């Protein structure tokens, strides 16, 4: 069963959202049935206006063991957050 119906990741663009968001996954034999399965499983309450399905095997993920190496160095560089600049009143909303 698993070999004939691989896993697909489902991304939905909602009515008010800007970009497609990951919502879950489905098993299906091919792209056509994967799209239909995604429609039937994830858009039953009017969630979406557009669906993407991507073979789960096509996604390359970062290794959880690399978390410290990849992400912790950013934690000490608070100057990357634009919170140190005083914006003159005349500029208004940025």
């Amino acid at each position: 069963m698993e070999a004939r119906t691989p896993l697909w990741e489902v991304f939905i663009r909602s009515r008010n959202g800007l970009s497609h968001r990951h919502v879950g996954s489905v098993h299906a034999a091919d792209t056509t049935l994967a799209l239909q399965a995604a429609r039937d499983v994830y858009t039953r309450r009017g969630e979406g206006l557009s669906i993407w399905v991507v073979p789960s095997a096509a996604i390359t993920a970062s290794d959880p063991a690399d978390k410290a190496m990849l992400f912790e160095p950013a934690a000490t560089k608070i100057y990357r957050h634009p919170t140190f600049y005083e914006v003159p009143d005349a500029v208004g909303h940025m």
Partner: protein
Amino acid sequence: MSDRFSAMLLRRADDALVLGHRLSEWTGHAPSLEEELALANLALDLIGQARALYALAAARGTGDDEDALAFLRSDREYTNLLLLELPNGDFAVTIARLFLYAAFADPFWRGLCASRDRDLAAIAAKAEKESAYHLRHSAEWLIRLGDGTAESHRRAQAALDHLWPYTGEMFEPEDDILVAADICPEPAGLRDAWNTMVDSVLEQATLTRPAEGWMQSGGRAGRHTEHLGHMLAVMQSVARSFPGAKW
């Protein structure tokens, strides 16, 4: 005229309710979680279509409300197609039945979108979008079953052969006065579109179109297979045991 109009609405509503109930029987038994939800979605579309048509029939003259029409009529009072009351069989029979019906229902609803009756046209405008998906979903599955493994091909062909004698009933004449008044399309006029759709999908599915032969008939006159009575006994048991119950 209103009796004829209501009778036509009941034929179409009974079709939708009976097939909707059959599809709902898959709940908890479907081959995969994805298809479980898909079949339940299809069932809900059809039951929704039935409700809209029953409510319109009730408003225009039958006097009953939609619940009475659905739950308090006997099998002899139901006028659905025999094709739709047959048991689900295996997944191939369920899909083939849905496809053969949707290939008719979709153009029929499209024809009803142009009905001179505006309430009916409004129901059709909603239902046509649903039936278009029913057709696509069942066609894609039938292609994969027919062009899949040796067993899925064998089962799909057996399903087609089993159901084929029930397809002629779809094209039986609709009430000629309603057709002449542009209230509903003449089913026979949809046969070419149905043939084209069916032949195209069967070819992709590597399935053989069964030979034309004797066709079953009787559903529109209330003469049903043995299966409808059993189905209605289950479907109507709560409404008949607890008349007027609310929750």
